[in-house]
């Protein structure tokens, strides 16, 4: 075969010469996943379909929520009131056949209202622990930043260690365990800034934006036609706890090239050296980026991670873990701007 494109290259060896007709090639195509991800894909499609019964648009949000579920992480949803944060979280919880509880955070909420408390049983003459609403698989915390730091600190242990220690006794929360929290932007009236230690425990912070004009028209049409839209009862559970456990195990086994591990470390490490930041991301952020990228790759039908996965998740993983210097904030920069700058400074392994 004449090599017109590489004049200096030698002729191909006979066994390397491709057949004129690809169909005649006996060898199977190597460019497919080695792990069968069809089971995971079917479940993901089913969840998307259930969410689509009520939620118009927000495909990217749904994909990131699924990613968080598969990566075994907590999610913080931020957006102005009325953009379906709570509705999305409720619907997602409904698609999973697991215990669900909801907490409305208020300024006077106490840690014991979340975790539970020991009550005295006179007939037994002993204290008995009464579990709080945190003991569920999917915990929806609505408007999490309306409670002060004292109540927030009650979540530190359970979000990271999946356990509650009360009166010297350890109580384990059910598996799977996921906190879906919503919050209004910090500038809104009557809100508190969440402690950094708690923010670090969220895998993703997802910004829920306004729908497009077309999406808003579809919302109006659906509401008008159905006199209130599709009822929540139409959404059914499509994933059991056992299924989810299996899918998470599959995600855990995803392949990641060593160069990509180095890429993650460099991206996160750069947040600690950036002049525009006075608080960089922790090693927990590196782990979050790795686990998230593995889950996203699986959702996209691959059994390996690519740099695109890492870049796509960099902002959701890092935006709530970094803090800008006052100068940068006054200049109008956001955490997403800094993450973008960092990604532009680091070479993609190829």
């Amino acid at each position, binding site marked *: 075969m004449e090599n017109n494109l*590489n004049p200096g290259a030698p002729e191909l060896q006979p066994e390397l010469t491709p057949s004129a007709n690809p169909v005649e*090639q006996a060898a199977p195509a190597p460019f497919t996943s080695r792990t069968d991800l069809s089971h995971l894909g079917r479940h993901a499609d089913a969840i998307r379909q259930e969410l689509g019964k009520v939620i118009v648009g927000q495909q990217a949000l749904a994909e990131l929520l699924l990613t968080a579920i598969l990566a075994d992480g907590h999610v913080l949803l931020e957006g102005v009131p009325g953009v379906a944060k709570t509705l999305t979280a409720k619907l997602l919880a409904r698609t999973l056949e697991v215990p669900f509880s909801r907490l409305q955070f208020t300024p006077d909420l106490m840690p014991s209202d979340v975790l539970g408390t020991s009550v005295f049983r006179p007939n037994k003459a002993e204290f008995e622990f009464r579990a709080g609403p945190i003991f569920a698989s999917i915990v929806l915390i609505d408007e999490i930043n309306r409670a002060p730091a004292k109540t927030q600190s009650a979540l530190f242990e359970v979000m990271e260690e999946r356990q509650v220690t009360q009166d010297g006794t350890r109580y384990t929360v059910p598996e799977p365990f996921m906190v879906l929290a919503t919050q209004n932007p910090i500038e809104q009236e009557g809100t508190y800034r969440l402690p950094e230690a708690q923010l670090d425990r969220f895998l993703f912070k997802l910004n829920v934006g306004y729908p497009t004009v077309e999406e808003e028209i579809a919302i109006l049409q659906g509401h008008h036609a159905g006199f209130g839209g599709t009822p929540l009862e139409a959404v059914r559970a499509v994933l059991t706890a056992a299924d989810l456990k299996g899918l998470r195990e599959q995600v855990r086994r995803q392949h990641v090239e060593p160069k990509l591990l180095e890429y993650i470390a460099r991206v996160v490490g750069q947040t600690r050296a950036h002049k525009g930041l006075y608080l960089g991301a922790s090693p927990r952020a590196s782990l979050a980026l790795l686990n998230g990228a593995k889950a996203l790759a699986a959702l996209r039908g691959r059994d390996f*991670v690519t740099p695109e996965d890492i870049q796509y998740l960099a902002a959701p993983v890092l935006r709530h873990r970094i803090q800008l210097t006052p100068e940068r904030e006054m200049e109008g920069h956001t955490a997403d701007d800094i993450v973008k700058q960092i990604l532009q400074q680091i070479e993609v392994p190829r």
Partner: protein
Amino acid sequence: MLLVLLALAVVPATAQRPRNAATTYPLPPDRTTRVTLRQPTPERLRGFRQQREFQYVEVKSEQSSWDLFWARFWHWLSELLETRPGKLMWEYGIYAGLVVALVFVVLKLLQIDFTRAFGRSPRPAALAYDVQAEDIHGLDFDALLTAAETEGNYRLAVRLGYLHVLKQLADRSLIRWQPDKTNHDYLFELPAGPLPEAFRELTRQFDYVWYGEHDDLTPAHYAQARATRLAFQQLLSTGRRAA
């Protein structure tokens, strides 16, 4: 008695006249005595001048040679423009500047890269990172590909082939090569036509081989990847000729 005493005590007060009430007259000016002006010593005058309170005029600092140069230049220019040819040049110079600005705006609006008109490629933006590791323009792809194929390192050969394609795309200005970009970024940069779809398949194969740890490629598998690459390169050169 008391009244009498009081009456005697009330004596009318009268102004006392000066004892010598003679009239005085001014003396005539003395024109004989010489008046001598007392001049302060130079040292004292210098002392006064150095005091801030006596410095009524702000003294300008001396101009530097650079300032003098510009002052003379502007003086020369103003004199030149005062002449008839200078006035003509000034008038037509304004028109020429307006025309150049108009052409620049039109070219920018049409997104035409006019820097190539002077036989030089545009200078790439300064990068804040080391590009040595991924400097595709510094690699001898033919030699490296041959070596990888000869050694049976097909995974490396797929990678080198893909980088070679990226280099060719960058050379043809179809993509803007930057090490921080991902393969999909380049995919979105390609112009509409048959190239994006072919490049998508090429990228998919590269991703599976390079990031998916497919290091057990058989010669038949590599031949398939190579065929995809050659087909893309053929498409690229055909498109170039057609253009």
